């Protein structure tokens, strides 16, 4: 509302600048991808796509995989969330770790540790083989579905949990008072109300599986998947295929856009505003029932934590090439990483730090303008800043690589393009975190400052920014955590000497050097967890207050 003559110019110029940045680094690469698919002379990318059954198979496989993982995630996440919100049972506190696991364990590491367990050379596989039980190969559908489900189900869990917690039990009681049985009242009243949140979580999983590159590439085996084929078209040795890479990336974008539209449509039909009422008091479960439920929930948590245990063990285990000598301990894996080639670690630290600072700076300013300083550009800024959600990491990587390969802004081969990929890929995430408290800051605070004689922009820094600091701090930590583990976009744009830790892990897995990959994984987790620990314990930043 505040449109004083003096401040219009300042915020107007800032939003114009933000607009230019978004158009150049987001919209232009996207258009480059889309137009790139139309190149290729008389047979453009789309003709080639339709002519080659491999591509259509990849699209179909991707959709089937996403549907399977999403259904399983709902089957795991929803009951778990219900148990966590309505019952007390032994070991319940372990469930609190789930959101952290979802955000923190990079999916490459999850895929890797599954391989170390049940891969061709895995611990379990070999143990069973010694008693003549031959496990089916984990590569392909089994590995993809199991690994991705345990990587992503926590998103369904988190959004369902929030919905059930926000649900007013009085509605349920009202239904019971009107003569329905407890079980039926729950189904009739609770289910429709939490459904939008469950759907939101499920569709998020769906889009993440469609865009997934790391696990798909490591565990996919012979199953053709869109993201992997796109990647191969982009970086294939002996000549990438620029037309096909942009065509496949366009397909990926199109699919996610369709899913997101579906989501909006579903949400717009079933958005219930539940007035915050009395929350349900968790019912203690004891005896056999308690142990049964606690055991089931515990099993899920243990399987989710398995990557961590496997990773740490592997990191300290002696290895010779691909052969792990379990039971023999060493620090050599770390030594090798830290002494002979510390570049990926330094790269990750530098790129992620720069990307987090830039990302948070942009998100803070842009979300502030979107919420508080609406003008001609802010609706467009709002859309553009959520656009990366509709782009898989692979698509973002290809877009940037194609757009800044030459010409006026030549970024290929620099660290800047990795930073750029990071910022863009994580922009929606940091935007959402940064804007979470803005709605709670009344406009009048800023107007009070202006009325007392402080100009609009200094007013923002003096009275609004200090109130945003807690949100910014938590946004920074979370953005950092998801940025350091970014793989699918950076693996397309990086060049020799610019490897990051996830890229290095991916390469080590590819070379079957699991011990070193584990050691790098442990270091990566440290890079993720230490700031989270410092922020929450030392600075008392509340990470999940906005959820």
């Amino acid at each position, binding site marked *: *509302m*505040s*449109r*004083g*003559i*003096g*401040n219009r110019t300042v915020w107007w110029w800032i939003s114009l600048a933000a607009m230019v940045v978004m158009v150049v680094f987001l919209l232009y690469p996207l258009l480059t991808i889309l137009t790139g698919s139309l190149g290729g002379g008389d047979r453009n990318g789309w003709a080639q796509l339709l002519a080659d059954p491999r591509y259509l198979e990849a699209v179909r496989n991707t959709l089937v995989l996403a549907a399977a993982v999403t259904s399983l995630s709902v089957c795991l996440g929803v009951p778990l969330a219900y148990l966590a919100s309505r019952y007390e049972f032994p070991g319940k506190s372990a469930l609190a770790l789930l959101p952290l696991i979802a955000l923190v364990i990079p999916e490459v590491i999850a895929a890797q540790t599954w391989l170390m367990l049940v891969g061709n050379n895995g611990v379990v596989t070999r143990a069973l083989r010694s008693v003549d039980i031959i496990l089916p190969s984990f590569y392909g559908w089994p590995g993809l579905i199991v690994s991705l489900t345990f990587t992503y189900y926590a998103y369904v869990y988190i959004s369902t949990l929030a919905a059930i917690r926000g649900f007013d039990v009085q509605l349920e009681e009202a239904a019971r008072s009107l003569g329905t049985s407890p079980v039926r009242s729950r189904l009739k009243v609770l289910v429709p109300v939490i459904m939008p949140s469950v759907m939101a979580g499920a569709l998020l999983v769906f889009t993440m599986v469609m865009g997934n590159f790391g696990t798909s590439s490591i565990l996919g085996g012979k199953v053709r998947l869109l993201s992997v084929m796109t990647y191969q078209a982009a970086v294939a040795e002996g000549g990438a295929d620029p037309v096909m890479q942009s065509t496949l990336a366009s397909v990926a974008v199109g699919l996610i856009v369709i899913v997101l539209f579906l989501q909006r449509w579903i949400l717009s039909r079933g958005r219930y505003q539940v007035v915050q009422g009395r929350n349900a008091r968790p019912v203690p479960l004891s005896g056999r029932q308690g142990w049964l439920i606690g055991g089931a929930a515990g099993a899920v948590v243990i399987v989710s934590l398995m990557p961590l245990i496997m990773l740490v063990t592997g990191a300290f285990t002696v290895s010779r090439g691909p052969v792990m000598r379990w039971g023999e301990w060493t620090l050599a894996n770390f030594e090798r990483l830290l002494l002979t080639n510390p570049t990926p670690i330094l790269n990750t630290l530098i790129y992620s730090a720069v990307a987090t600072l830039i990302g948070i700076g942009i998100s803070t300013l842009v979300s502030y303008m979107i919420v508080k300083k609406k003008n001609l550009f802010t609706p467009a800024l709002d859309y553009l800043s959520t656009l990366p959600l509709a782009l898989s990491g692979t698509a973002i990587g290809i877009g940037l690589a194609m757009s800044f390969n030459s010409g006026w802004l030549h970024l290929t081969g620099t660290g800047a393009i990795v930073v750029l990929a990071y910022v863009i890929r994580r922009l929606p995430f940091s935007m959402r975190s940064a804007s979470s408290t803005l709605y709670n800051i*009344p406009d*009048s*605070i800023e*107007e*009070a*400052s*202006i*009325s*007392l*004689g*402080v*100009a*609009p922009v200094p*007013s923002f820094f003096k*009275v609004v920014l*200090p*109130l945003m600091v807690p949100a910014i701090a938590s946004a920074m930590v979370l953005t950092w955590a998801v940025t350091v583990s970014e793989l699918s976009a950076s693996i397309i744009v990086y060049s020799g000497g610019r490897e990051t830790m996830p890229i290095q892990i991916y390469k080590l897995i590819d070379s079957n050097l699991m011990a070193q990959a584990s050691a790098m994984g442990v270091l990566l987790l440290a890079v993720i967890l230490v700031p989270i620990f410092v922020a929450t314990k030392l600075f008392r930043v509340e990470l999940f207050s906005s959820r």
Partner: protein
Amino acid sequence: MGIDIQKLGVAYGDHRVIDGLSLKIEPGSFFTLLGPSGCGKTTLLRTIAGFIDAAAGRILFGDKDVTGLPAHRRDIGMVFQDYALFPDKTVNDNVAYGLRARGQDGATIRRKVGEALERVGLGHLGQRHPAALSGGQRQRVALARALVIQPTVLLMDEPLSNLDAKLRVQVRDTITELQREAGITTVFVTHDQEEALAMSDRIGVMKSGRLEQVGTPSEIYRDSVSSYVADFVGAANTVEIDAPGAAQGMVTVGLGGHSISARVPAPLAGSRAVLIARPEDIALSPQGTGGANCVQGTVSRRQYLGGKTHYLIGIGADVALAVETHGDGHDRYMPGADVDLSFDPMKTLVLAS
């Protein structure tokens, strides 16, 4: 310094919410903008403050044209409905904020902050944060913060509406007292007619972006220029009647089959008019004792309220008037009783419908 608003226009997009509004506010006076929500009173206040651009016209503080001046350079003090205290700053720092922005030295700031808080009765709470204060205390801090900078004009946007009834009266008295003491030209926005009548030197009643009437509280109450104003400021019986010709001054109109004298303060237009009579301006007496200028009616409802009694009295088939009585025997008429209703011709108005 006075405020002079000349032919002001304000638009949201293409929609003109205020069009050609002119208003003069005397230096040092307490002026209230009164009206229902959506009438444009807050928009007008925010335009005076500089938070909304004027699309047309001029705003002058004294002789100085501030129309093009951004809010932070208009030298205003503003008090908000939600207090708008800076939650991360102590009470002292909140009050010192404007003084610091004006670059005053530390000692002066400390002295002025101390005095300002004393004046609102909160001298002992300077170290607290706003969250540790009650609503009434918060609004007093906000008032101290706005007054300590000795602004040219003080603007208040429904400052009492978040407070409960008892506090509202207390803070109201504080505001009135401080405003008189400081002599700062004040514009006060409210939808509460009692607040407006109690606090103001003059009141402007607003209706869809226009000033319907501007006057002293008693002018607004006694000489309402329209049924809208009469109805909004205090309770009023409004009865649709046939217009008594184009006459101005004293006229005779028909009411429920009787004729009574009433006053026409402004020329009428059209064939219909509205008769306005406030409940406390109608006197009741036993049937046949009403004297001149009275009509007969039957009590249909009686509500005893201690010091006064509310009656609803039917006149003829389709007119019912609210009457309020005080004094001896004010509660003696029971439902079903036939009574005379006497009208004071000066206090009974006929206005354009």
